[in-house]
C-alpha cells in the first residue's frame, strides 16, 4: 500500500472508529471512498448492548407498585442490582467497541453518549437510553432528539417528572436548547418558560414507557421563538430544528470531536452546518461529508487529537488482546484517567481534548503499559465518590494493584521476532502510532529495546505505547 494512502486510511479508522488492529489493517481496501463506504455498510445493522440477564424496572422491584411506594428493602435491592448491572454494562460496552467491525456506529454512540449526557442510577433505564442512542446514532438527528427526550433516564435526569401544568420545571426545556440543540444565546428566557409548558406532563410509567399525562399537560397557547400555538413538546422540537443555528451547533460539535478541537476551521464548520441543514439533519450525510473531504486528511488534522481514556483503553485491549484476570481493572482505569462510561461529569458531557490531560493523568497513561505488559503494580488510591456514583466506589481502589492479565503478542512475535531492534522500532512506530505522530527519537528507543534482549518485541511494544505520541490519534 502506498504510504500516503496508508496514513489516510489509518487516520480514517482512528477517527471514525477506534482504529484498526495491524492484522485487520492488512486486509483492508486501499481507497478512501471504498473504505468510507465500508464503514457505513458495516454499521448498517444495529446490535444492541445486552446483558446475559434480564434487567428489571422499578415497578418489578416494587412488587407491581409505583416507585414512590417502595419499601427501604426494595429500594436497597434495586440499588444493589443496578450497581451490579451497570458494571457489566460498562465492561460489555468496552468489549463491543473493541471487537466489532461496525465501529462507526459504536463511535457515534459514544459521541452522542457524551452529547446527550445523562447519569441514571436505574440500570434498565440507563441501558434503554444507550440502545436508543445506538439505534439512531447514524439516522436522523430529529428522530434521535425526540427519542432521547422520551427516555425515562433523560426525563428523570432533567427533572421533567416534576414538570407539571401547575408547577412547571424548566430544567428539561433549558438543557434541550442549551446543550442538545441550538446552544446558549439563541433563545430567550421566555422561550424556555414556554417550552417548559409544552413539555408538561411528559413522563413515564413504572416500567419506563413514555406517556403524556393529560391532566398535567398545559395545553394553552404558547409563544415560542416567534411562533404561537397550542404547542406540545414535539412542536417545540420541530421549531428548534427549523432554525439553521441548530444544524450549525451540531455540525460544529461533530467537527470538533472528529476533526480538530483546538484549531477549528470556522469556514468548514459553516459549510458543514449548511450541508447538514439541507440534508434535513441526516447524521449519515454529515459524517460522510467529513470523512470524504480533503481537509479531513490535511496534516494539521492528523495525529493531533488527544485520545479519550476510552479510546486509549480500547486500542490497547484490542491490539494486544489484553484480558484482565479481574475485569474491574478496566473500571479502575476509566476512573483514574477521568472517563467512566455512563458517568459523564454533568449534563454538558466530557469536555475532551486537553481536559483529559493533567500531570497525574499523563503519568498514568505513560505508566499503564508497563503495568500491563510486565504486570507490575500501580499503587493508586482514589477518593471515594459520592453515593450517586456508587458503582465506582464499589470498585476497590486497590484493584489497580492487581493488573494481572494475559496478552497475546503472537502476531507481533511472528512479524518482528527475527528483526533487529532498529527495524522493530521503525516498523512498530508506523504500525502503532497515529500518522502525524510518528516522528519519535528512534536511537533512544533502540537503546531501551536492546537493554531487554530476552524479549525485545514485548519491550518495544511497551516502550512505544508509553510515549506521549501514543496518546494522540
Amino acid at each position, binding site marked *: 500500500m502506498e504510504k500516503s494512502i496508508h496514513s489516510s486510511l489509518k487516520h480514517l479508522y482512528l477517527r471514525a472508529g477506534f482504529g484498526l488492529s495491524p492484522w485487520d489493517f492488512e486486509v483492508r481496501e486501499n481507497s478512501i471512498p471504498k473504505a468510507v463506504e465500508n464503514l457505513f455498510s458495516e454499521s448498517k445493522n444495529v446490535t444492541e448492548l445486552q446483558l446475559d440477564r434480564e434487567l428489571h424496572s422499578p415497578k418489578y422491584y416494587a412488587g407491581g407498585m409505583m416507585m414512590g411506594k417502595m419499601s427501604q428493602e426494595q429500594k436497597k435491592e434495586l440499588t444493589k442490582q443496578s450497581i451490579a448491572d451497570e458494571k457489566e454494562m460498562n465492561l460489555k460496552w468496552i468489549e463491543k467497541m473493541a471487537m466489532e467491525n461496525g465501529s462507526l456506529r459504536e463511535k457515534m454512540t459514544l459521541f452522542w453518549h457524551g452529547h446527550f449526557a445523562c447519569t441514571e442510577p436505574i440500570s434498565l433505564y440507563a441501558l434503554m437510553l444507550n440502545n436508543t442512542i445506538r439505534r439512531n446514532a447514524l439516522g436522523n438527528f430529529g428522530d434521535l432528539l425526540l427519542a432521547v427526550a422520551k427516555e425515562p433516564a433523560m426525563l428523570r435526569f432533567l427533572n421533567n417528572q416534576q414538570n407539571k401544568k401547575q408547577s412547571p420545571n424548566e430544567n428539561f426545556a433549558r438543557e434541550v436548547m442549551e446543550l442538545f440543540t441550538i446552544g446558549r444565546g439563541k433563545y430567550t428566557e421566555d422561550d424556555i418558560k414556554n417550552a417548559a409548558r409544552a413539555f408538561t406532563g411528559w413522563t413515564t410509567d413504572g416500567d419506563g414507557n413514555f406517556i403524556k399525562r393529560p391532566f398535567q399537560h398545559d395545553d394553552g397557547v404558547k409563544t415560542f421563538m416567534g411562533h404561537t400555538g397550542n404547542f406540545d413538546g414535539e412542536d417545540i422540537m420541530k421549531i428548534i430544528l427549523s432554525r439553521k443555528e441548530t444544524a450549525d451547533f451540531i455540525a460544529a460539535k461533530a467537527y470538533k470531536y472528529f476533526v480538530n478541537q483546538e484549531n477549528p476551521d470556522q469556514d468548514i464548520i459553516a459549510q458543514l452546518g449548511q450541508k447538514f441543514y439541507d440534508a434535513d439533519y441526516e447524521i449519515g450525510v454529515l459524517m460522510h461529508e467529513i470523512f470524504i473531504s480533503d481537509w479531513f486528511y490535511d496534516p494539521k488534522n492528523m495525529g493531533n487529537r488527544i485520545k479519550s481514556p476510552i479510546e486509549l483503553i480500547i486500542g490497547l485491549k484490542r491490539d494486544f488482546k489484553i484480558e484482565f484476570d479481574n475485569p474491574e481493572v478496566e473500571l479502575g482505569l476509566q476512573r483514574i484517567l477521568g472517563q467512566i462510561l455512563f458517568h459523564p461529569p454533568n449534563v454538558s458531557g466530557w469536555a475532551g481534548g486537553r481536559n483529559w490531560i493533567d500531570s*497525574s493523568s499523563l503519568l498514568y497513561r505513560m*505508566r499503564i503499559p508497563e503495568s500491563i505488559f510486565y504486570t507490575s503494580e500501580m499503587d493508586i488510591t482514589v477518593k*471515594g465518590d459520592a*453515593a450517586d456514583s456508587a458503582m465506582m466506589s464499589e470498585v476497590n481502589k486497590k484493584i489497580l494493584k492487581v493488573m494481572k492479565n494475559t496478552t497475546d503478542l503472537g502476531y507481533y512475535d511472528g512479524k518482528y521476532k527475527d528483526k533487529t531492534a532498529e527495524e522493530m522500532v521503525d516498523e512498530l512506530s508506523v504500525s502503532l502510532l497515529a500518522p502525524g505522530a510518528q516522528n519519535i527519537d528512534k536511537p533512544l528507543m533502540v537503546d531501551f529495546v536492546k537493554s531487554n534482549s530476552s524479549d525485545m518485541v514485548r519491550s518495544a511494544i511497551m516502550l512505544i505505547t508509553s510515549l*506521549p505520541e501514543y496518546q494522540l490519534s
Partner: protein
Amino acid sequence: MKRRDFVRYTTLGSTAFLVPAFLKGFERLSNPYLGPIENAYGVSGNKKILVVVQLSGGNDGLNTVIPYRNDIYYRERPVIGKKENEVLKLNDDLGLNPGMTALKGLYDDGKLTVINSVGYPNPDRSHFRSMDIWQSASESNQFESTGWIGRYLDSNCQGAQKPYSAIETDGSLSLAMRGETRTGIALESPDAYFAMAHDKYIKAVSERGNSSLLNGTDDIQKEDNLHYLYKTLAESGSSADYIYKTSRIYKSTFEYPKGEFGKNLKTIATLIVSGLDTSVYYISLGGFDTHDQQNQRQDKLLKEFSDGIGVFTDDLKANNRLRDVVVMTFSEFGRRVSQNASNGTDHGTANNMFIINGNLKKPGIYNDAPDLSNLDNGDLIYKVDFKDVYGEMVGNWLGADTEKILYRKNLSMGLI
C-alpha cells in the same frame, strides 16, 4: 526478566536526597526554592496558603453545629438529635458535635469561624450535580468545565504561576483544580509522585521532548497537542523533583489520626512547613452520605476530621505557620432538617462552613444560626452564597482578581 529490573531505577532507595537531620536547619537556610518566605527558624513571611477540605457525601450540618436550644430541632430529630448535655457549647444557641473537641479548642482560641446557612440559589439535591456546582463555582443552571481553583491558576497572578501552585492529595484531580490552560497536581504523596515521574525511560523521553520539541528544533507548533503533552510531562518531572526534595526538609513528629485523611494532612503540613511554594492544597474526606443509622457513622467521621485538623493546626502553630494558612471546609450540601425512617437524613440544601486561621478577623459564629422555622419544603434556606466565601479566599486571602475567577466583584465578608 521484568522490565523494572533493568529500566526503572528509583532514586527513592538512594541517599541522594535524604538530608541528615543535623543539616536540616542549614537546608532551610540555603534551599534555593524557598526564597525569602522562610528563614532558618521557620518563621513565616508573606506566603499565604489556602487548604480546602472537602467533606464528600453531604455532611449533615445540623448534627455538626447543633442548635441545641431549638425545639424544632428536637421535634424533627427525636432519635438522632444530639442532647444538650453532650454537645460542645459554642454560645447560647449552637454547639459542636461531641466528637469535635479539637475544633472546640480552636474555637476557644479564636482560630475558628463558623459560617451558617451557606448554599446557592435553586439548590440541586444530587451529590453529583451539587458537587459539580461547588467545585466549578457555577450557578445551578450553568455548566462550567473548569473549577474555581483551576481558574485561579489560569489567572496567573502572584502565587498561582507555578506548575505546582495547587496540589491535591489524591490519586486523581478534582474538577475544582482544573482550569482552561492550567491544572493543579494530584499526588498521593511526594514519594509516590516522584517515583511515578522518575522512571528512567520517562525521564529520557521527557528530556528528548525538552531538547527537540519544546526548544523548537522539531517542526512542532506551539499549539499542537504533542507540544502540550511534552510540556506537561516536563513540568510534571520538574514539579516531582522539587516537591520531593523540598518535602525532605521538614519531618513532622506530630501524631496524626490513622487513615488516609490524617496521612494526607500530614503530607500537607510537611510541605507547608518545608516551605513549598504552593498556594492551594485540596484534601477530601468521604463517607458523609448518612441515609441510615447516621449517628454512629457521622460522629466517627467528624471525630476523624476534627482530630486531624487539631493535629494539623498544632503542627503548623509549632512551626509558626498557622497565621499563613487558612483552612476552609465545605460539603456538597447539608441534609434535611427531619430525620428519616431509618434514623438517618436525606439530601438537603444549605450547610455550614468552617474557616480556620491563626489571625481571623471575625472568630466565632459569623452569622445567625439556621432558621428552622422558615424552611423551603423541609430544607434550610441559604443566607450566604458559597461563591462569596470563595471570593474571600481567592480575593482577600490569595490576592487574585475574583472577577475572572468567580465572575463577581471582590466583596469582603470581613473573615480574613
